[in-house]
Every structure is written in C-alpha cells, then in structure tokens.
C-alpha cells in the first residue's frame, strides 16, 4: 500500500496482473515507472481519486499526471470510472488514456464521447506493446502541459 500523499505521476488501473506487469516493464524501460501507482479495479481507482474508503486521508488536490485505464474490469469497469471522472469538475482535467484489448468500435466511440484523452489498443506483439505504452506515457508526462 502506497503512502497517502505520495506523489503519483501515473495511475495504472488494470485488473490483469500480466498486463500490469507488461505495462510497468514497458514504462520502466523508458524510466517512467518511478511514481506509478497500480490499482487493481475500478472501485479502488474511484476511492483513490475521490479520496474515499481506504484513501479518505489522501489529499485530493494532488492529482496524477495521467491515468492508464483498462476497460474490462470486475466490480466497476473502466467506462464507469471514466464517466465519473469526466463528469466531476475537480477531476475532469486529469488526462485519461484508455488502454484496452478491445478494438470494438462501440467501445472506442463511447470512451471518446465520455471525454477520454486517448484510446490505445494493447498490441499482442510485445515490441509494439512496449512502443505504444512508452510513447503515450512520454507524451502525457513530458510533452503535455497540464493546467496548474
């Protein structure tokens, strides 16, 4: 369990530990994995972001630079997390990158209409996977300039 007010730059919401590991490996390769927090389902992610439940002592003003969000998760799925984040004034500015296996058109449309900032299909090819994750994280952590 991470400390309540530890600085988190990347929030990874992913139920599949294999995918989480692959993602983190990709980020490590780009030296971006230092301030990463991995949450295993949507419910936990919502608790963290809105400082509720296990995270009620967390300072809500400290927001991650980017959230990497899987869609298919037990309990609360990625779509619901996205919808709650983007409908709240406090959290709607946080960039959300949907990182999922689905190439289904309805999923893509739904995510973008809810306000997702990017939609990445996880490639099966490992090299391509590494490239995709690195590029997206580099962009959101370093290239992008969020509002203060």
């Amino acid at each position: 369990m991470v400390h309540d007010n530890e600085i988190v730059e990347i929030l990874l919401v992913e139920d599949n530990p294999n995918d989480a590991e692959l993602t983190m490996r990709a980020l490590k390769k780009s030296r971006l994995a230092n301030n990463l927090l991995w949450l295993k389902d949507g419910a936990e992610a919502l608790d963290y972001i809105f400082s509720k439940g296990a995270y009620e002592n967390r300072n809500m003003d400290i927001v991650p630079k980017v959230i990497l969000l899987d869609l298919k998760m037990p309990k609360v799925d990625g779509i619901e997390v996205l919808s709650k984040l983007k409908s709240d004034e406090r959290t709607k500015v946080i960039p959300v990158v949907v990182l999922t296996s689905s190439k289904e058109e309805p999923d893509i449309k739904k995510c973008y209409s809810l306000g997702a900032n990017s939609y990445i299909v996880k490639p099966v090819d490992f090299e391509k996977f590494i490239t995709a994750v690195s590029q997206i994280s580099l962009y959101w952590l370093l290239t992008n300039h969020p509002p203060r």
Partner: protein
Amino acid sequence: MNIKIAFKRILFPMLLIVLSVLGNLYSIPLFPGFDYLFGTIFVQLMLIFYGFWWGLLCAASAASFTILLWGHPYAFIWYVFEAAFVGMLLRTDKRRLGIVVYEAAYWPLIGMPLIYIFFSQIMNAGINNVLIVMLKQWVNGITNAVIALVLIYIAPGLSAYLHSDKGRFYPSIKNILFSLLSILVIIPSIAVMSFYGRYQKNVSESRIVDDVRNLSERYTSAVDNIIDRYSAVVALAASLDSTMNLRLNNAVASENIKRTAPGLSYLFVIEKNGKLIDVYPDNKTDDFIPKSLTPDFIKHISEADKPFLYEFSSFPDKSSDLWTFLAEPIKIKKNKVFVVGAININFVSNLLKNISASNETFVLLNKDRRVLASSNSNIKLFEPYDFLNSGEIVSKDYGVYHFIPKGDGIVPLIERYKRSIFVRETAVPGHAGLWIICSVPFADYQASIYKGYISSLAIMMALILFALLLSLTVSRTVSRPLADLSLKTTDLPNKLLTGSVLTLPSSRVSEFSALMENFRIMADSLSEKFREIKHTNENLEHIVLERTREIKELNEELEQRVIQRTKELEYANNELEAFSYTVSHDLRAPLRAIEGYSAMVSEDYSDKLDDEGRRYLNTIRANAIKMSDLIDDMLSFSRLSRDDLKLCTINMYELASSVVKELSTADITAKLNISVGNMGSAFGDSAMLRQVWINLISNAIKFTLPKADGKIEIGSVVKNGNVVYYVKDNGVGFDMQYSGKLFNVFQRLHSQQDFEGTGVGLAIVKRVIERHGGRVWAESSLSEGSIFSFTIPL
C-alpha cells in the same frame, strides 16, 4: 360577339316580331270584314322560346297593326292581354305545351268579355257583329296556337337549337299526335270555311247586285215615264195653242192638264224675246213666272228647236222648290214661241219615292251632276253630288259599286260594313245628261249573311273542340300505354333486383299489346337472370370472405413466426455480439501474456538458452501473433456480416483508385503495373465495398508480386445487362478444381510459407457481395493469373 349567340338572342326574336307583323298584314279574309290573322302564331312562338316580356313586345308590335287595319285601338288591348295571359300561364308550365288550352281558355274568360265591352258598349255594334267577332277571335286564337305547336314539332331541330341552353326539348308522343290530329281537322275546316265564306259572299253579292240593277232600271224607267208624260202634256198644250189657238186656261184644257199631268204646276207660252203670251192656270197671280224668265232661260229657249229640261230654283239659296221646265218650241203665226211646263221637283221626287222601298235610295242628277231629286231629304237639291268622296268603293259587276263609308270617329269595320251600300249610277236612256244613282243598304242583307257566318263559326268551333277532344283521346290511347311502360321500366334493374312485381299496362292497340307482352317476358327472364347472378355473387362473396379469413389467419401465423424468428435472431445476434466482445477482450489478454512473457524470457534469459530454446520461444511468439491476427480477421468477418448496410451511391472508380493508392508501397509500385479502368457508380455500403476492393486488390498484389512483369487490371464490363466489376492479374493463379472452396472461411490454396494469410479475406468479400444481393466468382489457370469478378445488382 358570337354570331350564333347574336342570332339566338337578338336576330331570331327580331325575325319573330317582323313575322308577326307580316302575319297580320297578309291576313286572309275569312268573310267580308273578318280577317284571319296569322300574327299570333309568332307571338306564341316568342312566348315559348323567349318568355313573357319578348312575347308581350311581339304581341304589341303585331297588334298595333290592327289599329290601321280595323280603325280602332281595342283589338290592340285584347291582343296584348292575350299574350300576357298565355305568357303568365306558360311561366308555370315547364314544358310550355299548354298553349292551345291557354288560348282556348283566354277568349271565353277575358277576350270575349273585352270584345263585348268594346264593341257593344263603346262602339254600339250590333249583337250579331259582336258574336261573330267573338267567335272569330276564339277560332283564330286556338288555331294559331295549334299551328305554333305544330311548327315546334315539325321543326324539332330549331327548337332544340333555341333551347340548347335550357336542355333539349323533346315533345312527347302525346303532344305530337295531339297536334297532328288537331291540325288535320282544324286547317281543312278553316280552309273550307274560308271558301264557303267567299262563296256565300259571292252569292249574296250577286243577289244584291241584281237587286240594285232592278232598282236602277225601275228608277230610270220611272224617270223616263215622267218626262215622257209631261213632255206629251206640254206638246199637247203646245199643239192646242198653236193649231186651235186655244187659251191654255180654258176650262176643258185646264181639266185635261190637271188630270193627265197632276204635277204640272205652271204652263206658259212665251215668245223668244221673253214676252208672255199665255199662262196656265189663269188664276195664277204670283210673280213666279216673271221671276223665272231669267235672261239665261230666255237664251236657252230661244236657241232650242226641240223640248228640253231646264232647272230653276225659285229661291236664291236653292234650298227648296226646285223647278224643272220642260220647253217645247212651236210656231204661232209664223212666230217661233215656246210652250213651257214648270214642274216642282218635289213632286217628281215623291213620284220616284213611291216606287222604291223605304230603305232603298236614289239620287237624280242633271247633266251638270247636280241633284235634281233624292230620296234623302238631307241631300241638298241642285248641289253637285259625289257620293264617292267619303268612303271606300269596291267595284262589282254591272256597274254596281259597294260603297263603305268611313264613318265618324272610331267605327269598327263590321259596323262600317253594316252602314255600307251597293250603288249603281245609270243614265236615263233618251234623256241625255240625266242620271239616276240608286242604292240598297248592305245592312238588309248583312243580318242574314251574318247569321250564316255565325252558324259557320259555331260549327267550326264545335269542330275544333271536337278535334281537340278527339286528338286528346286518340293521343292518350296511343301514348298512355307507352308513357306507363316508360314509367314502369324506369330503374328497371333495381326493380327487378328488389323483386318488386312489374305490372305492365294493357293496351287495346295490338302492337302495344305485343310490346307489353314482350316486355313482360323480357323482364321475367331478366329477373330470373338477376336472381341467379345475385345468388352467384352472394356465393362468391361468401367464398371470398372465407378465403380472406384464411389468408388473414395464415398471415397472422406467419407474422407470429416472423416475430418469433426475429426474436430468436436478435437473441442469437446479441449472443454473437457478446461473444465477439468477449473474444476481443479476453482471448487477446492470454495471447498478449504468452507473447509478452515469451519476449521477456528471450530478453532477460537469452544467455541461458541455447539456440534450440530460443527457436522454441520464437515459435511460441509467432503463433501467438498469428492467433491474434486470426482473431482480428474473425471479428472483422463477423462484424461485416452483422452490421446494417448504409446504402449510398458510390463512385467505384474513385473507391478502387483510393484503395490502390493506399496499398501501393514503393516496392509494389516498382514491381507491378496496376491500372484502374473507368467504372460507373454503384449503390451500396461504401465502407463494406471498400473492404471488398482492399481484399481483392491486396490478394492480387500478394499473388502477383513474385512474378516478373506483374500486371493488375481493375475495371468493369457490362454482361447480360449487369455491371461486372473485376480484378485481373497475371499472378500465380490457382487450380480451378478448388475454386469452389476459394471463398470459404479459413480456406487457403497456398501454403503459409509461400503466401501469408488467414483465409478470411475472400470469405469477407463473398459475404459483403452476397449481402448486397450480388455474386462473386473467380476464374484462373495455374501460374497464368486469375480474374475475380463480382456484381452488385442494387
């Protein structure tokens, strides 16, 4: 303005007015003094065709002529009343055929009372005359109405033309028969009457002429007698005086003269210088003789050598006591002297009056055409006499004239006739210069003639009424069964359908009776047929209802089944959707794990593996990636099968060209010659057809790249009215014996080593084309190339 309308609206009514006036102008005399006028024929036509006001105008125009013709304005009144009466009744009579009846009613109701008032009360005409006028007008009116009606019937074209704006005008058979029969009776009777009237007139006139001739001869001989007698007396006196030298006034002579010549007032003997020698009667002491011996008279007698007449009035105003002198020259003692007898003309008049009846007249004229004597004491004596100046004169046989006086004020023609006379002017033979004008009054004969007229008219009227009744009866006998039949057979089909009993009229006319019988038979058989048809119809209707119900049931069942199937399909579709979703998400994750972890093993532990171990790991990774490609193609195939078609018009040339451009890498462009021919537009789902072109063109590229001089041709041709799109290459081709399997999913004709692929591309092509209702096929010969063709009939 339209000439036809002008003719109908203006010219034709004008023509009718002119004809009505002419009809009165060219009348025919039925009897003397009674003209048959034709004007009302046209007045009636006007009333029928142009209504009340035109009719009134026409009647007034025609009737104004009667003022000239008859000299009184009263006929104008009854003729205008006639038009008004008939016009009013016609207004309520739609078919306008009752004119004969209206005419027949007008005269007894209004016309005859008017005639009585005007003739009898105002113009003081005799009752016989009034009666004749009444009857004549009645006959004239009815006859003209019948003629007008017949004119309408015999010229139905004209009436149809004039009535064209009010609908066609069809006379009924009753009307036609009625008019024909009445005209057949009325016209001949009018003609017979007219001829008989003339004949009667001629007979009575010749009788009158004879009477006048006799009368005039009686007068002339009477005058002759008188003159002869007095001449003889004067001659005797003269001879007495000359031979015996007797005095005229001796007793014997006086007595003789008085006896033989009672009217001889004076007798005297004068010398030619006017010296009175002798005088009779001798007691005459008045100064008549000296006064009468005017120089003119002396001159007359001195020049005479034989007896002559000389008129002398004892008064300067010549109002009475006209004298006539008869002079006889004699010689006494070698001297020429004259014996003169003076006769008072009143005496002569009285003599003449005695020989004629009281109503016969005479006028005696001297050689200067001055009145010497007259039966009429109003005629001034010794005045010039001309009876011709105040009336109309018609010349008859034997120098007889019919003189019709003008009369004072308004006098109807027949009254003038009544006052008219038949006159004859006769010279008294042997007495040059003496004329007798004698006359008999027409009135004496008129009464008996008019009695004849009245009975003729009465017979005529009776004939007309009889003819009308007869024609009505006959026309009814003929027309009633027909009218009945036409009434009964109106709406015949409905009557037969409702099964009402058809009671046809009977007729005593054999043809009609046969017609009725035939009609009855026809109606019966029709009725039977109708019943059959109705029965069949009802049956048919029943069957149709039954069938409709069955079809409806089947339809409902079918609908239920369609709903059921749709539900099942929807369910299957949802399942498939869920399945795809799951596949998309859940099958990839393990594959990614296999690939990822294999990669991590080869990255982190490659130094701990030998070559064989590394090869195994690579094989694992390759298969994981292939598995992922298979999943992608499967999902894509399934999606193209499920998604709705979004139809629009597509420019196939542009679509194929863009696909070629997209697929053409530098390598491909260098090695292959790809051409896109001109293609028309198609109607279909743009995204799906794009996928078709991608799959076909990429296939062609894939199988042509290995060959040198690779060539790919894309285009379309029209075959059997269908547009066939094709992709033709000269690549490796395939064996036609496997062409059937070509489009099946995962079916491949080449090894994975030679050509990569999942075997889903052509299956997708087939599915898309089939969803468009088209057909896809391939022809090839091994190593020579292949043609892939498809049609889109949409």
